[in-house]
């Protein structure tokens, strides 16, 4: 009986020590995590403060007046004219063939009302619209309907093209 009691006492004592140790370990671990949380909190607040300052600075650097000035100096973008905005494929005039200068990059139909205006170097601030890229802005349906009249300059009697690719192919063929 004495041996069993002793053994059980040792067992329980061991258990107490182990659980005590485990508890303190957990406690210190939690304290560590807590410190880290505090640190991250502080850091987040500092970062957010920084973001506020940077947003203000970014906005300051994007003053329309400043951008207009930079545009004048480096890019020579001009406002988009009404002629450059077309609602249907049919409305796009064909570009007059440029004899001397190589043709500028092909215009990219821009999504929504975001229109890329590619300036021609050397000829800034001019109003002729034919040499400006033309973009189709999606104010309404792009291809109004299947029986869109085909641009007069391309084909007179050919059937209406089914897709943009087909139209481009047609135009290339006619040229």
């Amino acid at each position, binding site marked *: 009986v004495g041996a069993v009691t002793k053994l059980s006492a040792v067992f329980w004592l061991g258990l107490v020590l182990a*659980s005590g140790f*485990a*508890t303190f370990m*957990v406690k210190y671990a939690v304290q560590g995590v807590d410190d880290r949380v505090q640190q*991250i*909190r502080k850091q*987040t*607040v500092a970062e*957010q*403060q920084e973001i*506020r*300052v940077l*947003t*203000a*600075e970014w*906005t*300051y650097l*994007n*003053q*329309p*007046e400043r951008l*207009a000035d930079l545009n004048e100096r480096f890019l020579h973008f001009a*406002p*988009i*004219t*009404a*002629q450059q*905005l077309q*609602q249907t494929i049919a409305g796009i005039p064909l570009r007059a063939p440029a004899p001397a200068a190589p043709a500028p990059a092909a215009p990219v139909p821009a999504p929504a*009302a975001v*229109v890329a205006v590619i300036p021609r170097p050397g000829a800034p601030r001019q109003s002729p619209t034919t040499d400006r890229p033309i973009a189709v*802005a999606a*104010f*309404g349906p792009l291809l109004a309907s299947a029986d869109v009249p085909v641009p007069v300059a391309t084909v007179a009697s050919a059937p209406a093209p089914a897709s943009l690719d087909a139209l481009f192919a047609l135009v290339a063929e006619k040229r």
Partner: protein
Amino acid sequence: MTTAAAQPIDENPCRPRHFRPPPTCEPVVADERAAALLETCRSRLVAAAALFALVFLVVALRLVEVVLLPGTAAESHIARVRPVGLPPPVRADLIDRDGRLLATTLESPSLYADPRQIIDAAAATRAITAVLPQLDPQELRAKLASHKSFVWIKRHLTPHQEYEINRLGIPGLQFEPEERRVYPYGDLAAHVVGFCGIDNNGLAGLERALDRKIRTGAGPIQLSLDARVQFILRDELRKVIDDFAAKGAAGIVMDVRTGEVIAMVSLPDFDPNHPGVADPNLPPEEETDEKQRTFNRITLGDYEMGSVMKIFNSAMVLDSGVATMTSQFDASHDIRVGRYTISDYHGKHRWLSVPEIFMYSSNIGSVREAVAAGAARQRDYLARFGLLSPAPIELDEVAKPRYPNPWREVNVMTIAFGHGLSLSPLNVIEAGSAAVNGGVLHPATLMKLPPGTAPAGRRVISQQTSEEMRKLLRLVVEYGTARFAQGSGYVVGGKTGTAEKNQRGRYELKKLVSDFFAAFPINDPRYAIFTLVDEPHGTKQSQGYATAGWTVVPATKRIIERIAPLLGVAPVDEASPAVVDALTVKSLQGKKIEAY
């Protein structure tokens, strides 16, 4: 019995320390009282032990729960943790309709001193003024040598200045963390946004009008302004001022369907970051005083608008049934009232129909229309258009229209062509929008409405009258005074006005106010623009004219060309049958229309 009773007590592990077992040789006194006492003790011990065991069990279970079973107690704890983040600034941000920052609050430390701790005031003054050269050394030295315990040295330092001051290592200098209002776009929307005092109290514009909301609201406040449109409007108006050596100019763009103000510019203006400081780029003779620059011409200005008032005169006669599009009025002779003579600038000297009166901007015809309608009806319609009360807008700086009292016959006549009634440009654009948008007046607002909302508004004129007004406005652009607004690709309609300024009761020939109300696309208006230029002077290019047709009309055309793509307005084909049908005046069809 006695030994049997003593034995368990002796072996009881929970026995109290003070209990000594009696010597076994002596018989225990079989005392009934002692036995009962022992019994009580034991039961109390058992109860206490059970209680402790229970508590330890709870602790053990809790430990198991916290450590070994994830996702129960721990998560509910996490949910209780307050969100990380900056405390909201003392003043909420103001942003434009696309989220661009118009006003924000940044932390900026302020420098103060405890003069009692300053050892050498003279040396400290030298050191501080080396870092902050804008301070007055004399004044600073007097402050530092005083016997107070707190003096401000400089409010709102930059981080670099803070660093430099810290580097001086002068005892007695302290920083107070403060917040400062910053306007990154500077003078772009100065009159709308307004400005704050040094203690972050709103003093002008929306900063003042929405002061309470800005202080309590945590999130940013979104305005209806579009910074891009605002810039374009300001840019073009500045050109008008430069070209015509004008005293000032003002412009406003409004969404006619909602009453949202997209842009509002009043020139000259100021930098809200430094209100009251003159623009250093301007030569001294062009420097205008502070009152001029902080004056919001759009809301506070009151001007006699001239012929623009004929919009409301025509709408009145058409809507009330006094006249139809084919009615004619005698405009062959000047009208004499007392010592005044009312005449036309380019008289046709014949009977004119209602569209012709509007197109040729005939004063005589307009007077005849107004007289036919009568004073009561005129007053009623002007009140309906909101032209007899201050325009409702979020700003505090709003002028009350000035109108004659009593409303005599001569006033009826002069108001018909825009004299004798002073309005703010905001009044005019609000009423003008109602005239073209289908007849519903929407109060002007500077707050962005959720997209797709259609505020109810108040019906002013019938849908049909509004459609007729669009045709009339288009006529003015096609054949009348606003022909320079043609060819933008967005089918503009509008009415010009040029009025002599009434100064101390006398009209001065040389001092004009030229203004232009326009809407586009006029077949189905989306936006209205009102521009006004104060005291323009004719130039060689304008053949000496300073009237609206030569000043603000070309500017408005350029503005429309630039802002329409940004606002998502599609170009309109003027020749398309639908547009032609919507804008043709049937009674003038087939007739040869004389140019203005």
